[in-house]
């Protein structure tokens, strides 16, 4: 149920036969939430809303060059209608990058959340050995502290056959190591960096939810002879479902925004192109090709797609997670 305070609206307050002082107080009280929101909203408007609106504006503009384009003032900005959108949607590299990101998401999200859930359940079942528990908890959470740029760099070293210990070890057993950055493996290689970096955080979220469950709930099941697996499946997982839903949404958002990992790994191989993910295409258009207008158009499309996917999913599961305290 709701714990919020109903703020009396000024008109009702004034209509009451109460003292004018009380009415003033009430109207001041009505302003209180806005005052608390003010700094947040101001910053939000300046650094998020305004840039987004501006990006929307840019997506409808383009530069027109006159002549050779070499003299000063030979460039003018003109309205472009939806031509930037048409161009970015019909770019032959765009759809492949969308499919690639979907494939990537199909690898990353289930694997990462599956591992996170598994590790959380194991930690929870393993409460009797606190030493191993806290060691693994910290170890698995540790990658969260490593910036994606640095993480990709470290994994990059581990992927390259000539400098990787994985190759050395496999060769010692007489096996040939796969070329992890070749076209058949590269999607997995990039996914691995994301899984490595994200599992720990999601594990902590799920583990926290598990710890909140009173042990008495399992005891009766145990007495009835239920196996640990059955307890996990029938009791624990349903209980952490809301957490799983939330981690799913945030992982989905992060997946659609994957950028730093492939960007850092790109120079190490021939297989990651400038348009490997949609966001990399935005980067290429804006920073390599110096065409911020096309970049803005692609950005708007990505933002809308992310928005639709996340909210669509939440609608599907009943929006429980975002509004749970109402």
């Amino acid at each position: 149920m709701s714990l919020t305070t109903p703020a009396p609206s000024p008109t009702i307050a004034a209509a009451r036969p109460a003292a004018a002082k009380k009415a003033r107080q009430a109207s001041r009280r009505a302003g209180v939430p806005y005052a608390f929101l003010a700094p947040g909203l101001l910053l939000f408007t300046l650094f998020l809303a305004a840039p987004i609106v501006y990006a929307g504006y840019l997506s409808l503009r383009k530069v027109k060059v006159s002549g050779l384009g070499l003299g000063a003032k030979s460039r003018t900005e003109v309205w472009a209608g939806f031509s930037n959108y048409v161009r970015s949607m019909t770019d032959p590299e765009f759809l492949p990058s969308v499919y690639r990101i979907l494939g990537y998401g199909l690898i990353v999200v289930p694997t990462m959340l599956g591992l996170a859930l598994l590790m959380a359940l194991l930690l929870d079942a393993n409460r009797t050995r606190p030493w191993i528990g806290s060691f693994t908890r910290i170890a698995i959470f540790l990658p969260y502290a490593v910036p994606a740029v640095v993480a990709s760099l470290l994994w990059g070293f581990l992927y390259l056959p000539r400098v990787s210990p994985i190759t050395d070890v496999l060769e010692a057993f007489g096996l040939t190591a796969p070329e992890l950055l070749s076209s058949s493996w590269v999607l997995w290689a990039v996914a691995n960096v994301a899984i490595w970096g994200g599992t720990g955080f999601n594990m902590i979220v799920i583990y926290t939810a598990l710890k909140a469950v009173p042990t008495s709930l399992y005891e009766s099941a145990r007495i009835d002879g239920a196996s640990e697996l059955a307890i996990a499946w029938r009791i624990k997982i349903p209980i952490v479902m809301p957490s799983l839903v939330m981690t799913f949404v945030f992982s989905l958002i992060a997946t659609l925004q994957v950028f730093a990992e492939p960007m850092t790994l790109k120079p190490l191989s021939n297989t990651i192109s400038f348009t490997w993910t949609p966001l990399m295409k935005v980067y290429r258009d804006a920073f390599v090709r110096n065409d911020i207008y096309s970049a803005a158009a692609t950005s708007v499309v990505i933002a809308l797609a992310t928005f639709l996917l996340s909210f669509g999913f939440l609608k599907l599961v009943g929006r429980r997670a975002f509004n749970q305290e109402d």
Partner: protein
Amino acid sequence: MTVLAVKKRNSKTATLLLLVGAAYCLLPVIWVLIASSKSASELFSTFTLAPSSHLFDNLADLSGYRDGLYWRWMANTALYAGVGAAVSTLVSAMSGFALAKFEFPGKGFVFNVILAGVLVPGVILAIPQYLLLAKLGLTNTYWAVLLPSFISPYGIYLARIFAAAAVPTEILEASRIDGAGAWRTFVRVVMPMMRTGLVTVFLFQFVAIWNNFMLPYIMLGDDKLYPLTVGLNGLLNQGASQPSMYTAVVTGALVSIVPLIALFLTLQRYWQVDLAAGGVKA
């Protein structure tokens, strides 16, 4: 086989799986630890997991690079992350408190707009933010990185959950009857109650800023203002006519994650986030 034996075996499997998971997560960290102990030529010639004895030489070289520029990057990063996260936490707490504890016209709209903000990737914002800050003449200053990091839609979202869970409405009513001002109530009563949650928000934002690359990369032209991520990236990509400084990058990468690991270990108990049930269990 007795039930007890099965249980024992299960627990052994569980421990083993946990240790495998830990090993996977530690592998790159162990690698960077070993790699940073190697000299430049050993890094590319000796067996990858064979440690050497040059860690301190490498640290000295790193410190010596352009008069200790690396440490300046470290200090910059601490400044960006520390100040940015502190201000952002306060802003988030205020907004989250208002959204969780008051009914007012437009509340649903404001919350939904802020939620949508969580979805916007930084790469998309970078250019418009640059153009905006350039209009204010703030690019290539500390403010260019600090100001945009003061706002965190995710922080507001979390703060709202924490405020809803940790601050009972009765207490607000009580302090209002006492005649305390809203701001005083917030500082004296609400903030202490949300303390654990706010530390989590702080940590989130701290890590987010610490790991940020795109925003400072675009905003800064003077490498004395760089944070670690941008600085290390620069050492790696020097352009064709310069060699990449792998030893410095590897050693720098190792040193750069030490402060965050320390932060995690000391503030471990705050990393217990329940995104869904609404609260932090300390």
